[in-house]
């Protein structure tokens, strides 16, 4: 167990290191000048450009910039912003080239949006996906099963920005049942929060629900074919108990671990939905920062995404060991 955790932490550090080096490398090895963007493409004089470069730290060698970034992350660092010197405490992700705001603050500001979107959608896709999958497996080969299978194949073929667009057209433009989504914090008005998020939730949940339904069905069919299910029947257990206590337990264990990984991948999965609905979440922030070559923000987001994915994977492993006692973590 201890050796497992140590190896996992070492693995995580390696992943994050590779990730950050890769991001730095991409932005420096390839052309494109953030200073030029900040300064303005046409109106910028050479002097001003140099000044901006210096202010952003772009005049220093790449290795130096990377070193400063890493020290900032671990112990914090001081950053000169014109005449004043700002202290950026650890974990310091630096300041945005575009807005001068601390990257960490930018991220924490937008985190609730992404979490609201993903967690809400998750409830939906679990309900629909697992429910549909179980039903489909229990009614194997019958109408419900075939209908579910068709829906699953359809659902998996609709990219989130297509389903989202169609939902918008139907519910906001034609039926006018729902407001055009804009984020309202949960704390200020829960009803408006939910009403605004309904469409993004469904859009994001649709594809995932299809994936989960398919997996649930497969997993459930496999479990139902296992010998211990036959034993449960052979000993006179009611069918509801055979399915509810014995089959579901085995069938859902792999899904729990997959869920942990998916929640870890939240930033990746939500980027398209956020962009489509104009929700000010992390995904949207990423797309914006990439388009403006805002390196510190991009690096910060990448590290966060990597971190979340690594954590998701560890949680998945732990969950698996807890849920299935045959698994031992070594």
């Amino acid at each position, binding site marked *: 167990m201890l050796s497992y955790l140590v190896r996992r932490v070492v693995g995580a550090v390696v*992943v994050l290191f*590779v*990730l950050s080096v*890769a*991001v730095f490398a*991409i*932005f420096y090895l*390839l*052309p*494109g000048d953030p200073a030029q963007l900040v300064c303005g493409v046409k109106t910028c004089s050479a002097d001003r450009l140099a000044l901006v470069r210096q202010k952003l730290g772009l005049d220093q060698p790449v290795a130096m910039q990377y070193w400063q970034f890493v020290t900032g992350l671990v112990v914090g660092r001081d950053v000169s912003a014109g005449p004043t010197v700002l202290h950026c405490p650890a974990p310091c992700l630096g300041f945005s080239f575009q807005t001068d705001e601390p990257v960490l603050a930018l991220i924490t500001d937008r985190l609730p949006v992404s979490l609201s979107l993903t967690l809400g959608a998750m409830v939906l896709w679990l309900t629909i996906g697992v429910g549909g999958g179980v039903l489909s497996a*229990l009614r*194997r080969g019958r109408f419900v099963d075939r209908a579910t299978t068709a829906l699953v*194949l*359809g659902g*998996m*073929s*609709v*990219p*989130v*920005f*297509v389903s989202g*667009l*169609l939902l*918008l*057209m139907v519910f906001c*433009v034609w039926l006018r049942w729902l407001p055009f989504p804009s984020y309202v914090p949960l704390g200020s008005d829960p009803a408006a929060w939910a009403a605004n998020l309904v469409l993004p939730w469904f859009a994001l949940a649709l594809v995932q629900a299809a994936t989960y339904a398919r997996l649930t069905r497969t997993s459930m069919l496999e479990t*139902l*074919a296992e010998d211990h299910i*036959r034993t449960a*029947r052979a000993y006179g257990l009611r*069918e509801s108990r055979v*399915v509810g206590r014995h089959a579901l337990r085995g069938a859902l264990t792999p899904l729990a671990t997959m869920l942990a990984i998916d929640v870890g*991948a939240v*930033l*990746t999965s939500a*980027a*398209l939905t956020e*962009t*489509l609905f104009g929700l000010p979440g992390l*995904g949207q922030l*990423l*797309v914006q920062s*990439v*388009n403006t*070559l805002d390196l510190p923000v*991009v690096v910060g*987001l*990448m590290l966060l*995404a*990597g971190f979340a*994915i*690594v954590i998701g*994977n560890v949680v998945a492993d732990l969950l698996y060991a807890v849920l299935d006692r045959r698994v031992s973590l070594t």
Partner: protein
Amino acid sequence: MSVPVETTTRAGTTEDGPPPARSARVVWRRLLADRPAVFGLAFAGLAVLVALTAPLLSALEGQDPVTFHPELVDSARGGVPLGSFGGVSAEHWLGVEPQTGRDLFARTVHGAQISLAVAVGAAVVQVGLGVALGLAAGLGGRWLDHLLGRVIDLVIAFPSLIFSVALLAVVPDSFPRPLLLMLILGLFGWGGTARIVRAQVLSLRSRDHVAAARLAGARPARVAFREILPGVVAPVLSYAAILLPSNMIAEAGLSFLGVGVRPPTPSWGQMLSKATTWFRGDPVYVLVPAILLFLTVLSFSLLADGLRTALDPRAGGLARRAE
């Protein structure tokens, strides 16, 4: 309510299940017996045909995908196409693009070209890399396997969508975009194939017919080519078939985020990206690429599903034709 009980009893038979597909002909015959797969095959074939003949088709219509037709849009209403259904007419079969008035039919068929080319190209890169590295891991020594196993895990866990976004944004426009998309999707997407190949090689390696070949004095290369590689073909083929629709979705997603194919080159994802601002005024502009994208992805998925069943993963599957 009750569910089938699996029994292990077989009477008067020595079979362990349906025979494995032994030739391409058998797979083909099984595929044709599967109705959804036939639909998938037909529509996917149509899409490929349209993509291949895109210039011909738009020439037939008498339009091209890049010419502006400002006279066909209503500048007073922000550039919504004149006429009903987004400006459908005898000259413009699917109407025109809002604001610019470019011909929608021409853009759509050319868009098919890009979407399919990127999906296929990326799949080629994914399968090539995946098979090469999976084989190296499975056939190489313990150390190589350990190292490559880690790399494969890393590639699969990598936040590839956002990384692709970053990469696409900084590569200069002079690099051909479709090629770049193929490479990026390919470079991030080979992990699954590699994992499948590695697992299959490891499982085949432990089988007794491999031991028997070694006892017969076969050199490692002969063992690999005769006893192991043929068993890898079927799982790779059935996985590669799933890669196509998922690559199409990924390409559309990146183009939607504005980092994929650059204008004026048309692509379905990029058309949808523009459509987000027009779905109130010009719904046809949304529906055309949306429905086409959906149907194409669906048909490729159906085809992949049918192919997987036809290859019969349980029995092992496709091999060279019986001599």
